[in-house]
């Protein structure tokens, strides 16, 4: 005799529809997870970059005075580097506002010192302001961390939204599978009844549905994860092709953690499907003697 025929008939059109829905949900969930993770990564790297960065503006100083101020700044405890910006660098900073032809030499511009300080040191801005004022320099200190905080908060919200989307998609997938299992159970009530009356235990009958939906979840999850991988790869390619000028935007990457997310997607889908099937079948069987 050849291999035993499964007690549940091979999948029908209803299961194909479920396969499509679970696959699509897994695709969205994987993509949302990758986005959440890259948003988190971007927020971390970007804020780490600007943490401890300051710009000191010296409106009344000439180049020599500015160099003297730079030395005072650099000598301050907690400062790692202080660099006087060149005229070309200042022109480049102002280019978005005043165009590429530069500013007339007659126009007075403040001297700017770019400062990199230890982010762990508190009150760096006020300390520099006080020291420069004591040395007789009119100055204004701009701590990048002040507005980096706003960006950080915004990114945290974006991350929360992405995680909520992942949770919603996952719970939707579980609900859809539970619904589909219930429908499958009703459609195959004849099989369930015969097995039940032949003395099959509840967990034996549930096991048939569990195996079926575990495989369905696994396969649909794998397809969804592969599509998410394709979409992520396309986005990475598009970002690289555009010259990667989107410095503030989260950029998708594919590192080990991303691969783990993609590998975990079908496993989670399979387990969720299995669990949903088990709970649905056991609950349904308990309604009969």
């Amino acid at each position, binding site marked *: 005799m050849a291999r035993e025929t499964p007690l549940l008939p091979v999948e029908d059109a209803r299961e194909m529809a479920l396969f499509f829905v679970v696959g699509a949900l897994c695709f969205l969930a994987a993509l949302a997870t990758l986005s959440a993770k890259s948003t988190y990564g971007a927020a971390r790297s970007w804020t780490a970059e600007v943490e401890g960065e300051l710009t000191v503006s010296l409106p009344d100083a000439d180049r020599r005075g500015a160099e003297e101020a730079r030395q005072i700044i650099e000598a301050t405890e907690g400062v790692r580097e202080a660099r006087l910006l060149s005229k070309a660098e200042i022109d480049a900073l102002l280019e978005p506002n005043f165009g590429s032809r530069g500013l007339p030499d007659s126009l007075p511009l403040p001297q700017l010192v770019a400062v990199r300080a230890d982010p762990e040191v508190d009150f760096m801005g006020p300390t520099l302001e006080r020291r420069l004022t004591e040395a007789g320099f009119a100055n204004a200190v701009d701590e990048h961390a002040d507005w980096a905080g706003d960006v950080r908060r915004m990114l945290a919200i974006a991350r929360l939204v992405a995680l909520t989307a992942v949770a919603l998609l996952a719970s939707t997938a579980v609900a859809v599978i539970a619904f589909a299992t219930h429908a499958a159970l009703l459609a195959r009530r*004849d099989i369930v009844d015969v097995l039940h009356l032949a003395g099959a235990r509840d967990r034996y009958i549930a096991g048939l549905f569990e195996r079926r939906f575990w495989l369905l979840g696994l396969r649909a999850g794998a397809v969804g994860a592969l599509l998410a991988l394709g979409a992520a790869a396309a986005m990475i390619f598009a970002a690289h092709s555009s010259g990667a000028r989107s410095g503030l935007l989260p950029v998708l990457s594919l590192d080990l953690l991303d691969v783990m997310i993609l590998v975990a997607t079908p496993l989670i889908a399979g387990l969720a499907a299995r669990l949903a099937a088990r709970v649905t079948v056991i609950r349904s069987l308990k309604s009969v003697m």
Partner: protein
Amino acid sequence: MTLSRHDLFDDVAVRLDSVSLRYDTSEDILSGIDLVLKPGSFSFLTGASGAGKTSLLKLLYLALKPTRGEVSLFGRPTSRLTRDQLSALRRRVGVVFQEFRLLDHLTAYENVALPLRVLGRKEASYRHDVEELLAWVGLGERMHARPPTLSGGEQQRVAIARAVVTQPDILIADEPTGNVDPEMGSRLMRLFLELNKRRGTTVIIATHDLGLVRQVEAPVFRLQHGLLVQDVEYGPAARRRTDIVKAAE
């Protein structure tokens, strides 16, 4: 509680104490039924259509809970058993359903082997028995056919083979000869009698076929208006009684 074949030797195979059954809010289908079947007994259940024969059988093969009263199998009150214990009891009961309940995606062979698969038996261990049983019911050549391609009579024989393949302690059959010719009907009755005599299987057959009832010296229980009329006479007395039942119907 572990249930074993030794329970067969309990004093009573089936016991119904003041059992009533009602579906939803309707009238009682069965009312205050008392019934005792000894292990190894052979009984008929008759009654007009809608008298509640199938409902009574459902109580016996543990598909339904009584609305009131207690159903006990092998001395075990079923209301006190866990789900696993009920499953274990069901494995000792073979059922021939009126509507056969064969699984269309399985072959005749696989349908018959189904209870053995549920028991966790390996195919190699039961293949010969199942093939022999199918040959005995005249389906040796059709064992790989699926139910939709079988005639009503063939399906009925598959259903009967499935019910007896585990050599159950109780065999419950609902109109088991309804779709077979008289010759096959007699043959199936001989199978039931053989199981009853050789293995001590308790057999309960619900039937309209009084001709079938007359073939066997066995008590006849008749359902009428939800009540069970017990008749424990044998032989010619049983034949006389079925004539009376026939006249009454």
